[in-house]
């Protein structure tokens, strides 16, 4: 019997091969291609020309810095607005909470371009000008649910006995929050930050639509270069972004795996 099981499991192992090949072709090789294109010039041959061009191109650098700024402000706003919401949701009676959480997630099921155009319509309706303010509103609007959900998830799983214990031991409500609840919810906060910060840097289309093409974010620069046939330069810019993302994930070490598992929306 034992041998039967072993051969059964032994053969199952080979089932991962098709997917391994698929990942190689569609994930690893394409990423290697970005690196390859980034370090070759238009005429072929190894060169650092693309990076030199980037360094000598203040516009691209300014856009990158601006995009990081927008992403940081968006992340902070989402955290400041989203944390209290997630906290309040986690205190609600479970049936009510699951209904409200669903309501918070629901807008994400609408195509984000339609949502963004709806924001444009809202600003038009309220006679507010489009521009930086609209951009920030649109970003927070689009990404707030990604902050609320992981934090809610963690808070909801927090053992209420820990909070009670803190209270019993004489902690003031403030101490309970800052010394018990907040530290316990840090995994949720980091996955929320990852799920907001990284996508914001790379968004394109949202900024153009909300600022009538006045503000460009880094994602747009990437897209324009690729579209205009400047693959090598575009690849170099993508590599810059990949490095940036690598750094952000390293700063959030350990929480990345959690972000993908627990932060998932279903």
């Amino acid at each position, binding site marked *: *019997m034992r041998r039967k*099981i072993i051969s*059964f*499991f*032994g*053969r*199952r*192992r*080979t*089932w*991962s091969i*098709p*997917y*391994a090949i698929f*990942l190689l072709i*569609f*994930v*690893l090789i394409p990423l290697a*291609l970005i690196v390859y*294109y980034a370090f070759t010039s238009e005429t072929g041959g190894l060169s650092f020309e693309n990076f030199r061009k980037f360094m000598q191109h203040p516009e691209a650098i300014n856009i990158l810095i601006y995009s990081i700024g927008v992403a940081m402000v968006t992340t902070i706003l989402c955290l400041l607005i989203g944390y*209290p*919401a997630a906290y*309040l949701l986690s205190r609600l009676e479970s049936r009510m909470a*699951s*209904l*409200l959480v*669903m309501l*918070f997630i*629901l*807008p994400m*099921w*609408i*195509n*984000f371009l*339609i949502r963004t*155009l*709806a924001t444009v*319509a*809202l600003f*038009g309706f309220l006679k507010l000008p489009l521009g930086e303010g609209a951009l920030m509103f649109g970003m927070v*609007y689009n990404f*707030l*649910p990604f902050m609320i959900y992981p934090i809610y998830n963690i808070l909801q799983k927090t053992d209420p006995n820990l909070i009670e214990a803190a209270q019993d031991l004489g902690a003031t409500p403030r101490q309970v929050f800052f010394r018990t609840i907040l530290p316990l919810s840090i995994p949720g906060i980091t996955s929320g930050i*990852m799920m907001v910060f990284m996508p914001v840097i*790379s968004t*394109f*289309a949202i900024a153009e639509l909300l600022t009538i093409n006045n503000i460009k974010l880094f*994602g747009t620069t990437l897209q324009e270069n*690729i579209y205009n046939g400047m*693959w090598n330069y575009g690849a170099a810019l*993508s590599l810059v*972004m*990949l490095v940036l*993302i690598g750094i952000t*994930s390293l700063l959030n070490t350990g929480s990345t795996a959690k*972000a*993908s*598992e627990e932060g998932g*929306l*279903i």
Partner: protein
Amino acid sequence: MIKKILTSSYLGLLLVMLYAPILIIIVFSFTEAKVLGNWTGFSLKLYASLFQGGVTHSLSAALWNTLIIGLTAAFISTVLGTVAAIGIFNLQQRAQKAISLVNSIPILNPDIITAISLFLLFVSVGISQGYTTVVLAHVTFCTPYVVLSVLPRLYRMNPSLYEAALDLGATPFLALRRVMLPELKPGMISGFILAFTLSIDDFVVTLFTIGNEGLETISTYIYADARKGGLTPELRPLSAIIFVTVLILLIIINQRAVKKTNLKTT
């Protein structure tokens, strides 16, 4: 009491903010005005012309493309991801870790990096871009989610069940079909749904892999439309219908989940 009022007013305010743009779209789907924000009296004309086709021929073509691509990509990802999950589950720990790491790359990568890397792959190989490339690209970013939703089912499964099936004389294939698949089914279904929604909601990856043969999905259609300066009025009723459908589906799912937990606790 005051706490309760504050809680509900904070959450209520956020929900108003999240839903205001969507509400505007729904309200203005019931008027004929070309420009969103002008109210020219109640009318169902936009709904009628959405279903008649004709004027909106390219829109309904885009809608069909979106659905077909979404279903194809979700189907392929579910099959590939389930087979892969069974394979990964039976690998040694080291190989398991390696493949899980690569599996998480498409989840953690921003859309635009996935998009550019796949674009470079397709142009390097020289495949003409169209249906096939879009589906392949969607399968690339959908399958990891399927793997992540099927794997936990495998870990939760009681391994004695196979032993029992094999002991009772089932062939490995029969044991797989009659014992393993029913156990994996919930994970496969949620993986399929997730893959489908990710696919129909995708814009960036689609834009980079769709080529310029005139193939459009809803997202690229809206993008092209918005760049021309406005939203085709028929998109308003379409968004309204999508939104209400999703709302109803989620409420049903939620109700069923509540019922299930109630049954379990009693």
